[in-house]
C-alpha cells in the first residue's frame, strides 16, 4: 500500500460507504442525492487508484464514470421529476463539499502526473466530474418541469 491507495481506501470506506447507506434508507430526496454523490466520490477514488497502482491507463475508468455518472442521475431526475417536485432535495452544502473534494483529488493527481497528454485527460475528467456533479444536483432540485409525459 502507498499513500494514494490509503487515500482511496478512506474515500471508499467513508464516502462511498456513507452514500450506500444514504441511498438505502430515508426519503426519496435523500436517496437521489446519495446516488449522485456515490458516483462523484467513486470517481476521485478511481483516480487515486490509478495513481496508486502506477497505471495511467486506469484513468479511462474515471473518465467514463465522470461522463456517465451524471447521465445516470439525469435519468432519475427526469423520470422521478413528479415525485421530486413535491419534495425537492436540498443538499447544496454536501454537494459543494464533494465537488471540492473531487477538485482537490484531481489537482493532486495532476501534480503527480506532470505536464503531458495525461494531464489533458485528467483535466477533462476533473471538468466533467465537477460540472456533472453540480448539473446533476441542479437537475434533481427542479431541473425538469415534471410534465405528464415527454
Amino acid at each position: 500500500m502507498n499513500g494514494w491507495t490509503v487515500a482511496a481506501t478512506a474515500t471508499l470506506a467513508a464516502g462511498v460507504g456513507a452514500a450506500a447507506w444514504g441511498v438505502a434508507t430515508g426519503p426519496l430526496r435523500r436517496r437521489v442525492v446519495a446516488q449522485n454523490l456515490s458516483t462523484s466520490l467513486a470517481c476521485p477514488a478511481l483516480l487515486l487508484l490509478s495513481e496508486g497502482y502506477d497505471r495511467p491507463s486506469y484513468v479511462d475508468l474515471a473518465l467514463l464514470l465522470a461522463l456517465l455518472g451524471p447521465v445516470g442521475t439525469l435519468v432519475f431526475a427526469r423520470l422521478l421529476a413528479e415525485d421530486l417536485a413535491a419534495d425537492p432535495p436540498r443538499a447544496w452544502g454536501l454537494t459543494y463539499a464533494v465537488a471540492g473534494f473531487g477538485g482537490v483529488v484531481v489537482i493532486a493527481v495532476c501534480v503527480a502526473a506532470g505536464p503531458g497528454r495525461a494531464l489533458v485527460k485528467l483535466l477533462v475528467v476533473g471538468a466533467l466530474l465537477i460540472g456533472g456533479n453540480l448539473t446533476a444536483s441542479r437537475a434533481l432540485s427542479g431541473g425538469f418541469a415534471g410534465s405528464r409525459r415527454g
Partner: protein
Amino acid sequence: MSVFPYLVAVWVFLVGCYGLVTSRNLIHAVGCLAVCQSSTYVLLLAVGYRDGATAPVFSDLKPGSRPVVDPVVQALALTDVVVGATVTAVLLALVLQISKLHGTVDPDELSELRG
C-alpha cells in the same frame, strides 16, 4: 482472507435468490436477478486474482516487469456484463407484457388469476 471474497460472492448470490423468492413486484424480481448475476462476476474475478499483480494490459507496462492477473476469467466476465444487461431488458419486456395483459405485476396476484 483466503476465502472471504468467495464467501461474499456466495452471500450476494443467496441474498439475490431470497429477493427473487419473496418479491411482490416482478420489476423488483428482475432487479434481484441482476444482483444474482453480479455475484458470478465477483466469483470469477476472485478466482483469477493474484497477490501483488496488476492488469494484463501492456499499453503502459513493459511485458514481464510485473506479475499479472488471469485474463481468461476477465474476458468471460466482461462479455457477460453487457450481454446480461440485454437479457435484463428481455425480462423487463416480458414484465411489461404481463402488466398489459393482467394489469398487475404482483406474482401472487398473477397466480390467483390463473386459479
